[in-house]
């Protein structure tokens, strides 16, 4: 190989590395900026002096959060909601995915159930009939309005179903011959070998319920019942209102709410921490889980 080709190759490789790392930074830095803002003084934030390093480092915003009773109430509601939804989702996903992973011959009626699920995925009554149902069930302002409507994550059931159907038949037959019943086979054979798929759907469940603000917005009429994201969203609305109020930037920065920017930033950082804690634990599974489960040959 000639020197020049080698040289060109190296330049090309360098360019590719540069682009990829730049893209990663573009994903990371805006988020990092919020962290820096949360640790800066409100004066520095109003003056737009904060980049990637906190200016006039202070934890004042965080000490203020500790006094914000509603923040912690909402935080607690979100934690409870995620826990309830996770347990319910996982039980239902596992129970439904197993029989559905059987063939039509092994499980009579399989296709009927499958069609019931697919139709529910395809067609929904929409926002308003669902709201009226929750209202008529007297679930407004209760945690159940945040948990029960999403009890069956159909996409996750299908994902786990595909994973289960790839489990070697011999394992199941051996267990049956040893006298196990389907429930035992499911929990002693299928669940242990399907950890990547189950971790993936668990991550979906946790992330989905933690991040959802909309059910809180429509099903909770009192702020004291808001889950965390709905509470934070209600704070953000102020910023949007400010933006429409004036197009003049100096006018905007004069408004006192803008100095709450660092407080809101801190609230966002605290709200994201739980996700950041579980993300690395589950990340190694979800790539396999998604690739195996998403497409049916």
């Amino acid at each position: 190989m000639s020197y020049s080709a080698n040289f060109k190759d190296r330049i090309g490789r360098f360019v590719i590395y540069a682009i990829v790392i730049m893209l990663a930074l573009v994903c990371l830095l805006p988020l990092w900026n919020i962290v820096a803002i949360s640790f800066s003084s409100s004066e520095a934030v109003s003056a737009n002096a904060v980049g990637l390093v906190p200016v006039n480092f202070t934890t004042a915003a965080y000490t203020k959060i500790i006094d914000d009773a509603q923040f912690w109430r909402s935080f607690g509601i979100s934690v409870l909601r995620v826990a309830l939804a996770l347990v319910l989702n996982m039980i239902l996903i596992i129970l439904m995915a197993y029989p559905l992973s059987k063939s039509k011959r092994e499980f009579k009626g399989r296709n009927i159930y499958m069609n019931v699920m697919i139709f529910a995925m395809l067609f929904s009554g929409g926002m308003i009939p669902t709201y009226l149902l929750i209202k008529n069930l007297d679930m407004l302002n209760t945690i159940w309005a945040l948990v029960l409507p999403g009890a069956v994550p159909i996409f996750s059931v299908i994902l786990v179903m595909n994973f289960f159907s790839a489990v070697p038949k011999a394992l199941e037959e051996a267990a049956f011959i040893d006298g196990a019943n389907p429930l035992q086979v499911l929990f002693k054979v299928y669940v242990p070998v399907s950890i990547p798929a189950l971790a993936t759907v668990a991550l979906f469940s946790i992330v989905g319920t933690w991040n959802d603000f909309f059910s809180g917005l429509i099903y909770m009429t009192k702020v004291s019942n808001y889950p965390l994201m709905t509470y934070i969203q209600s704070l953000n609305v102020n910023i949007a209102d400010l933006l429409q109020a004036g197009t003049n930037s100096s006018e905007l920065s004069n408004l006192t709410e803008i100095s709450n920017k660092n407080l809101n930033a801190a609230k966002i950082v605290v709200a994201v921490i739980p996700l950041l804690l579980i993300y690395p634990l589950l990340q190694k599974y979800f790539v396999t889980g998604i690739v195996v489960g998403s497409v049916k040959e």
Partner: protein
Amino acid sequence: MKQGKLKARGRLGTGAMYHMMMLPGILFLLVFSYIPMVGVITAFQDYIPAKGMFGSEFVGLKHFIYMFKLPDIGQVVSNTLIIAIGKILLGTMMAIIFSVLLNEIRIKYVKKSVQTIVYLPHFLSWVVLASVVVNMFSLDGIVNQMLAFFGLENINFLGSNTWFQPLIIGTDVWKEFGYSSIVYLAAITSIDPGLYEAAGMDGASWWRKVWHITLPGMLPIILLMGVMSLTNILSAGFDQVYNLYNPVVYESGDILDTYVYRIGLVGRQYSFGTAVGLFKSVIGIVLLLSANQLAKKYTDRKIF
């Protein structure tokens, strides 16, 4: 004989047990998915909450006719389509380019760190990311500071009907390209390495290998993902738009979902809102069924 034994057991109760396992989930679906489907009847009524679904008067297609006559609806549908199609096209392109480039990264440590970072925004809520976006794109945000640095005029991204749609599309691509690259990366790794070696022997450059081996190798999955994304064409992303828009940009920002929420739920026009929602659902289901047929025909795979 083994076969017969299993069959006998099946008759004794495996089937019944399977049904028992399905029962709780199916009950939840019946209550929380199927009962609201019955609720779409309200789209054909003048629904009055006090009278309920069975007491309200039937008015036929009144709300649908009203919907098609509204001056807003054309705008809302076109906003929805522009935003959704923009997201699909740019998002897919970006994810493909990124996965091809990332595949060239040989240093494990760099590759892993980059992946961890680019997947991250997907897992954050638009509530959180809206703050990030507002922070970047507001009048005194970093983007406008950069524009000023290059002597360009400030742009009020969040309050401009010209810039709002590009902003929505761009920030969605930013949030999702890493995550959607997962399937494309998987497709690349399943390409036979022998092809690259052979091409290398023939003196193919990096670009030629990408063009003649990698991209054709990814084509089935690209087609499949493209077909699948068709189904989202009427869901331009409620969470994102809702968290970023404001009355100034309703004109360019309102999509079907935000419109239903604003008119139907906040404005308490339940029947009208349900009618718009039903319109969206029906188009969506037609698209999904066609997409499944297309996928089966062209990629030999299907969605369900």
